[in-house]
């Protein structure tokens, strides 16, 4: 099963290598990884999407916790959470197809961020399911280029607080 793990780490050089090395050294798989500093610039948050059975995931979180530079590990998959991913996708857009692409963009609440003589580039955000749906629809039109940010995730607010 896929798990999304949020890892709060010291914002120091070498920390990413430690985390990545832990995954590769112990044979765990990283599906996507996103890192950026937090409000407190001495702390970064990594959102890691990984796959494995319960035992593997338990080891992943325990091993992450063992790293000195890791401050906190949350497997958000175990609770209610929100997650988003950003995607830039450049599609072939001959004159006669432009309207159709614009409509798709509108339906998925995405924006056109770049226009070329024969292409349009859309910025899409959402869950990975939504991004996959957009790609399914755009694929027949001809996708020229594609980048995805990897997932970021956050626990939902506690309704009692």
């Amino acid at each position, binding site marked *: 099963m896929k798990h999304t793990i949020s890892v709060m*780490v*010291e914002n120091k050089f*070498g920390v990413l*290598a*430690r985390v990545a*090395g*832990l995954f590769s*050294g112990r044979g765990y798989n990283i599906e996507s990884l996103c890192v950026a500093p937090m409000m407190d610039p001495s702390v970064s948050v990594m959102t890691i999407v990984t796959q494995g059975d319960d*035992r593997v995931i*338990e*080891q992943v979180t*325990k*091993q992450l*916790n*063992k*790293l*000195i*530079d*890791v*401050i906190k590990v949350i497997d958000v998959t175990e609770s209610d959470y929100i997650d988003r991913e950003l995607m830039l996708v450049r599609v072939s857009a001959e004159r006669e197809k432009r309207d159709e692409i614009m409509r798709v963009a509108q339906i998925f609440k995405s924006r056109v961020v770049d226009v070329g003589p024969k292409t349009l580039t859309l910025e899409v955000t959402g869950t990975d399911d939504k991004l996959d749906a957009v790609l399914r629809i755009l694929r027949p039109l001809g996708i020229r280029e594609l980048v995805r940010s990897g997932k970021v995730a956050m626990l939902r607010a506690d309704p009692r607080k």
Partner: protein
Amino acid sequence: MTDMSGAEILVDSLEREGVDVMFGYPGGVLLGIFDVLFDSEINFILTRHEQGASHAADGYARSTGKTGVCLATSGPGATNLVTGIATAYMDSVPMVAMTGQVPTSMIGGDAFQEADIVGITRPITKHSYLVKDVRDLARTVKEAFHIASTGRPGPVLIDLPKDVMAARMKHAPIDGVELRGYKPTLDGNPKQIERAAKAIEKANQPVIYAGGGVNISGASEEMFKLAQSQRVPVTMTLLGMGCFPGSHELSLGMLGMHGTYAANMAISDCDVLIAIGARFDDRVTGKIQEFAPNARIIHIDIDPSAISKNVSVHIPIVGDVKRVLTELLKKIKAPDDVKKKTREKWVGQVKEWKTEHPLAYEKSDSVIKPQFVVEKIYEVTGGDAIICTEVGQNQMWAAQFYKFEKSRRFLSSGGLGTMGYGLPAAIGAKMGNPDATVIDIAGDGSFQMNVQELATAAQHCLPVKVAILNNQFLGMVRQWQDMFFNKRYSHTCLAVEPDFKALAEAYGARGYLVTDPKDVVPVLEEALFSPEPCVMDFRVDREENVYPMVPAGEAIRNMILGPEKKKTGKLRAVK
């Protein structure tokens, strides 16, 4: 605040951590540090290879409980430490390894003797530092010692660029460490301890499986009380040797691949398994599904990731073994008369196994049996020596035939299985325990992997003793070839070897060649009590094998007990 150089701050910080012995080797980028060390109180031991320095620091740490310290230069000096660091990592040994590094401005430029040692050692250190600014230096040293010695101990590496060592600043010593990402759990969860107490109280056939964590935590006394008051037989891992007195009636000796019959049977038949500071290593468990198949498993360990890693356990307790056992002893009720009877019956069964198949070998008057040498070392030293081993048959025979009565008396590379560990570790142990008899029980193969450290022992007048069980083979590999590869001894015969007696003498040590069984004791008596480092070359039975043996991947009750003797222990139903 005094104006000091990085090198001065480093040595000052080490002295404040209580470092009195260091092992290492100089080099270009370390000249500044060595200049300061020249005037320092720290006793610096110059080894003949950086690997020797790392194992010596390890031996010092294992035998004293203090943090071992080693220092090597950049590039090849640093990479030569790698095996020693990995050895310490696998066996949870507190160590601070320091390496020189090229100046910060040259890092990444493929400078002369540059190696990314922080990158190279990342998977084999508990933590590591590259000090880029002299202002971080004192805090880094403080943190490194704290991390290395607390929680589950391990090696920490500090990489020291040359310019940082030369830089000057106004320095005031640091006290206290605050690491928000590092807070080991020391006290066990009271509810879990309660559950464990209940489970042990109910047990009819309990066994303690004790690992290196008991020695590290210094919990022998607490564990002894638990075993004695509840009448629980105790078996130990290789690294657990000594945490329970080997001659005690409840001691089963070592378990696992070359464990005793009684230990492996008791594990296979127990109804409650109390794993203490052990990690269910594959050399211990054999076929994991059939390891303690009927037991409720209690697992006490300070490292949460050790729990349910290989075996899923019923009652995990994360915490320092000593603290957890202290609490457990408070909560657990003494067995009533009925329970006492069941327990005595179980202990009786275990004793039966012990007498049925004790550790044994065929005695001989004509050829020296390696086990005989270890037995005699035990007798001559009264069981009170610090025994280091190399890796292979020598290691197993040492663990089987020397009865360890105390903690920190058996130093052996268990996890990594590092050949060449024993001699430098003995040097480190002797530095930490000047009054102890320190013996390296070696094989002729592994002894040669760090034989150059004889010069270190001679130079520093360290009377360590090496007993080579010389079979002119890489014995353990040959044993596997004998048993599983149709005796095809592919590249395991050491056909050409030095004259070890002459070699010892060439290094300024004393050498003995022993070929007759009746000379074993006289030579041991002379060598072990001589004030010099000694090498005893015991020419032993060349094709002797280590028994019992559990073939890799089999259940541990399926032991080969001797040549042509295979016995599968039957499991009995738990009453």
